[in-house]
């Protein structure tokens, strides 16, 4: 299992500014995942962050808008850049543990972002 802490838990930001979200895990993990959950919607994977290499972004998400850092095996940050009201969402980080036949994902509590 894993305990994941995200900061901040919520924020209200002005359009055009940037917000960096931090994710701390209580154990070392190879990959960390960043999701976006728009109001009343499901989770959409933004990118996968490996330690020591560039993040892999999903279709529709780009590094300039969502730069990610992964300085070590327990920590990652996601920055939402040049924010607009459309970026208002919950952002979640996640880690996964893979066994022989299953995958268990653990999530942080999320960062609720409102852009005004």
């Amino acid at each position: 299992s894993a305990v994941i802490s995200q900061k901040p838990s919520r924020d209200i930001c002005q359009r055009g500014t940037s917000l960096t979200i931090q994710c701390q895990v209580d154990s070392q993990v190879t990959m960390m995942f960043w999701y976006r959950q728009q109001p009343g919607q499901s989770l959409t994977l933004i990118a996968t962050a490996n330690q020591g290499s560039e993040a892999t972004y999903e279709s529709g998400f780009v590094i300039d808008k969502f730069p990610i850092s992964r300085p070590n095996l327990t920590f990652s940050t996601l920055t939402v850049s040049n924010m607009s009201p459309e970026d208002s969402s919950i952002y979640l980080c996640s880690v996964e543990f893979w066994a022989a036949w299953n995958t268990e994902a653990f999530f942080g509590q999320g960062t609720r972002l409102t852009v005004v």
Partner: protein
Amino acid sequence: GESVGLHLPTLSVQEGDNSIINCAYSNSASDYFIWYKQESGKGPQFIIDIRSNMDKRQGQRVTVLLNKTVKHLSLQIAATQPGDSAVYFCAENQNSGGSNYKLTFGKGTLLTVNP
């Protein structure tokens, strides 16, 4: 592309009743499915999972049923309690190569339990 979705966006039940939450998936190659519960203000929490070589798996008060013929997944909650009120997501595990497993989430069903 492939997707995982739900039939019902909302479900309201009386305390003590059984709840059934449904999910349809479209990727016949998927071999692993998971149900998550997300309470307000929290991240999703693992409930139960099932492999494609199974059609039923039981946990404590929860049962997941998989029908591969019609690509349908359901979560049954017995004796539903107010603490079960949450959004429930099904997720599909897609092997994107090597050990890179990506989860694809369905739309979610809001379960409300009335006392």
